């Protein structure tokens, strides 16, 4: 049997850029805490808000799980107030992660807070990696990523760090054997288009979900192989399977 929601202790909850938080929790478990691309449902409240919130695993270091989140609404606002030793309830790991048995030269392309699963992926892949990270303005987590990758490309929309513009402007798919991407839908759509006939690409999809474990069908998306649940069959899909325009 899988474990349901379990209470965990918060180790740290730090604002690393404006409205971007790094949350570390301590979990004692005999089972794997999860693979890159998998996620957890989190809640630090009772019944208001009613639903938990899904977050990708950003890192696993022994019994410490790291999540990154951006404060966008009530749930993440509550999370941002948490302090070390506060309690959190977590369900997971959930979903299917990235295929780690790839070889050759790999590109990871992230947009904004979509960087979270890419960080853990960079750490876990055993092959040559170029990391493409797009930000609005503030840049974060690049120092940590550096030790796991060959080269980092950064863009910011205001040009304050790296090249000015979008990360999809500078990504060159022909240089790679495989690509992985996570970020805003228009960005991933562009990555998939650029990769067509050049490199296979895997995308980590985002969707509003209630349960996170395959029951509500709230997160279902249409794919070339029928309706798929982002939380259960995903969140990682092959780029050519999914439709970005609804």
């Amino acid at each position: 049997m899988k474990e349901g929601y379990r209470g965990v202790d918060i180790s740290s909850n730090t604002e690393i850029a404006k409205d971007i938080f790094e949350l570390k929790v301590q979990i004692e478990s005999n089972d794997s805490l999860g693979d890159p691309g998998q996620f957890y449902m989190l809640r630090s409240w009772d019944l208001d808000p009613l639903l938990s919130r899904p977050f990708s695993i950003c890192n696993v270091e022994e019994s410490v799980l790291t999540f990154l989140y951006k404060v966008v609404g009530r749930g993440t606002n509550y999370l941002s107030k948490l302090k070390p030793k506060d309690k959190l309830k977590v369900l997971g790991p959930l979903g299917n992660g990235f295929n780690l048995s790839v070889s050759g030269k790999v590109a990871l392309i992230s947009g904004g807070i979509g960087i979270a699963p890419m960080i853990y992926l960079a750490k876990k892949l055993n092959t040559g990696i170029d990391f493409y990270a797009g930000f609005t303005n503030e840049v974060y987590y690049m120092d940590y990523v550096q030790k796991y990758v060959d080269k980092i490309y950064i863009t910011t929309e205001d040009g304050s760090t790296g090249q000015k513009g979008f990360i999809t402007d500078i990504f060159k798919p022909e240089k790679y054997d495989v690509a992985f991407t996570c970020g805003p839908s228009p960005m991933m759509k562009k990555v998939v288009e650029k990769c067509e006939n050049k490199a296979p690409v895997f995308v980590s999809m985002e969707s509003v979900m209630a349960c996170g474990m395959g029951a509500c069908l709230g997160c279902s998306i249409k794919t070339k192989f029928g309706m798929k649940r982002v939380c259960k069959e995903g969140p990682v899909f092959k780029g050519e399977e999914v439709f970005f325009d609804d």
Partner: protein
Amino acid sequence: MIDTKVNIAGVEFKNPVIAASGTFGFGREFSEYFPISKLGGLSTKGLTLRQREGNKGVRIHETTGGIMNSIGLQNPGIDAFIEEELPFLNSQDTVIIANVSGNTIEEYVISVEKLNQTEIDMIELNISCPNVKEGGISFGTKAEIANNVVTQVRKVCKKPLMVKLSPSAENIVEMAESCVEAGADALSLVNTFPALAIDISKKKAIFDNITAGLSGPCIKPIALRMVYEVSKAVDVPVIGIGGIMDYRDVIEYIMAGAWAVQVGTANFINPNACAEIIEGIEEYLQKEGISTLEEIRGII
């Protein structure tokens, strides 16, 4: 000695907790978290004669004390259900209820005829889905229209027949009486409340269908009142549904007159919700010195 068994239309439930349709899939996902044989029963995701992809656009939206959904009866269709999902469900020691929806009376009838040939324990006729364009809730608002659907289905249905009512019925008591008159063996109420949410920055309704079904703790007091009124008026068992989050809510429904309950939204918040509620009911009865649910049923 505590006994939480309940007999509804000749079907014995080991306890009064039934997983509500559309919140429990076909049981597989939850069976990873607890043995679903603990459940009194399980009502399947709403089934239609043909496969449905469900609705486009936003499907879930959180609101204060509730969630709105517009899934649109995404399901594999009756035949695929019978072939691929039912064998697993039949292997579980719990009551299996097939929730059936349709766009036309003929579709309901054909679906029920197919289910007659299976080992399904009971049929729950969904005349109350708010999220499909045709059929669904339109059968569930006017008593005379519902009466016709239930009458036609009753003619062919060889299984115990439960009818799931919409809170949008023009008059919930008349609706209930009309369905019983047409041959319903039990009634389950209520389905979700048609509701509206607007995105003020996009200046558009959140949902492509404009309205969507509201569920969760915010609807409980209204649903409870409807269960109270209906259970006083009809002489078939009433199954209470709406916003049950813990065992206390279940006890309230039983006291209002329900024979059993369905737990829905709570499953999304905690995969073990039903199992915990079942334990909570037993502890409550123990503590209060109550040996059967009948002792407190309808005491209000």
